[in-house]
């Protein structure tokens, strides 16, 4: 009999891939979170200047109504409120930055390792394939959450410096957290795409397409009339369920959050299933 196999003696530890992914990527929380937080700080710090919001409203009114209606609703007066301003000038686009990171993170779950060949080493260890997807995705979900929370710190710091500002910090917090389901959906989509297509370039393009596509589908749908196909298609856009203007005015929309999270779970389940079935690295 061979000398004792050391793996046989010990049980393969659960969470090791999760911990290593966090260890390797935690600095991204600082880079992206502080970057986006600084943008939030800058955006909110403009608010106290006298006449700023009035000037902002005039700019909004100069735009074609369909354009701002797509993101801010039909009430132009809302645009002149601090909440409306933050919604239009920060929350409406910063989510795209987190979605972009979600694509990068999604690439790091399997396809980057598959293309570089390190996945061969990883999966030659006593590690089921589903654990690679679940543990790495969980780690990146936490990293994205950390980034998003840091952007709240930026907004909150900016709010502290603006005594005259009457704005509900709780609503800002909700608006910040509202970005998470959208980012997770893009993460889930990218992981799913990587479970089908093995080429990093293809997955990157698909990840980019869902961000840009969702944005423009929502934009064009918002500009179209209620019964048009363009409006109907908005249900396919994650941006449709993001609704920053609605959340900062009325709080979380749990139905939208539920739809995004459910879609994320479905995509991840599909990714696990497909990844379990197929050949690797060919």
């Amino acid at each position, binding site marked *: *009999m*061979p*000398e*004792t*196999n*050391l*793996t*046989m*003696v*010990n*049980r*393969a*530890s659960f969470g*090791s*891939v999760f*911990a*290593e992914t966090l260890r*390797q990527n935690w600095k991204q929380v600082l880079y992206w979170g502080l970057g986006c937080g600084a943008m939030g700080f800058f955006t909110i710090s403009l608010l106290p200047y006298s006449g700023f919001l009035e000037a902002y409203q005039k700019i909004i009114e100069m735009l074609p109504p369909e354009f701002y209606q797509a993101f801010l609703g039909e009430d132009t007066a809302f645009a002149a409120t601090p909440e409306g301003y933050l919604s239009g000038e920060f929350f409406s686009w910063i989510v795209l930055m987190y979605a972009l990171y979600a694509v990068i993170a999604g690439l790091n779950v399997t396809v980057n390792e598959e293309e*570089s*060949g*390190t996945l*061969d*080493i*990883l*999966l*030659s*260890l*006593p*590690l*089921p394939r589903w654990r690679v997807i679940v543990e790495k995705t969980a780690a990146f979900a936490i990293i994205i959450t950390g980034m998003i929370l840091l952007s709240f710190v930026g907004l909150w710091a900016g709010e502290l410096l603006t005594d005259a500002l009457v704005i509900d910090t709780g609503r800002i917090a909700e608006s910040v957290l509202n970005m998470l389901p959208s980012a997770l959906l893009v993460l889930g989509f990218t992981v799913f795409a990587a479970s089908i297509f093995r080429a990093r370039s293809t997955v990157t393009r698909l990840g980019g397409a869902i961000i840009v596509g969702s944005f423009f589908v929502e934009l064009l749908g918002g500009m179209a009339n209620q019964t048009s196909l363009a409006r109907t298609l908005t249900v396919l856009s994650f941006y449709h369920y993001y609704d920053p203007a609605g959340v900062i005015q009325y709080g979380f929309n749990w139905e939208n959050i539920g739809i995004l999270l459910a879609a994320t779970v479905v995509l991840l389940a599909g990714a696990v299933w497909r990844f379990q*079935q*197929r*050949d*690797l*690295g*060919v």
Partner: protein
Amino acid sequence: MAANPVIQTDNLTKVYKTGKEAVVALKDLNLSVQPGEIFGFLGPNGAGKTTTIRLLLDLIRPTRGRANIFGQDANLNSVALHQRIGFLPGELSLWKHLTGKQVVNYVASVRGDDGRMVKHANELAEQLDLDFSKKVRAYSSGNRRKLGLVVSMMHKPDLLILDEPTGGLDPLLQQTFNQMMRDARAAGRTVFLSSHVLGEVQAICDRVGILRNGELKAVERVDDLTHTNFQWITLRFRDAIAPEVVAQVPGVTEVTAENHSLKVRLSGDFDPLLRAVEGHYIVGVQTKEPTLEEIFLAFYGNNGAQKS
């Protein structure tokens, strides 16, 4: 009673489909590797060696047939089997931004190390003269290979699967590697290694399987292989002799004449050759076993057919 094989494949086949084209990478492989042996899997690039290894490790799935390792299905029981397997890929890729130590720690943590694997990894690194403190991207290809070997052996696996293991190792380290493989065998482990370097296989393997175009052409003991097929006979004569004298002799496939000598490649019996040179004064006779390279070429003749 024969021991249960460590690796057993039954009609293992892999067909890759690219669009409308189907490429048969491995066809009906029936192979058996016994416990405690070093088995060499020999073949040129594209023969199907890596495909076989990836099938054994469940990185890819067979089109038909099956592979059993330690009596368990390589696909259905892959996670449990990977506890007992150490793997070194041919095109080794490790996490470039990690140091050697971090790579070892990562792999050890996935394997559920209690400290002994890392300790053994350090011993192996010392044996291979490898510095763990550098980042993988700073390693030479030889050092990356050493790190790959450490990672594959740090848990003292029952089965080592090594794809072209000595590529990038200098001759001195190849000797160290050979010794490590012999030590592994002495410890009761089984080694399955692929190679296109015949000398490497000859140096350490007990048996060898020869693969070409996805088909297993032969499985032989390395000792037997060197005694099969043909031998080189050099006949030294007192006087000059024309090569045509022996060219038509049954079993003679090559004749070279040089300075009153004929060098003949002979398959089969000696007698017809001696009868053909009867009447010529023979000064001396020399016989030489073919090298493994020559046997290899005999299997992979230019026309692609296996020769006997």
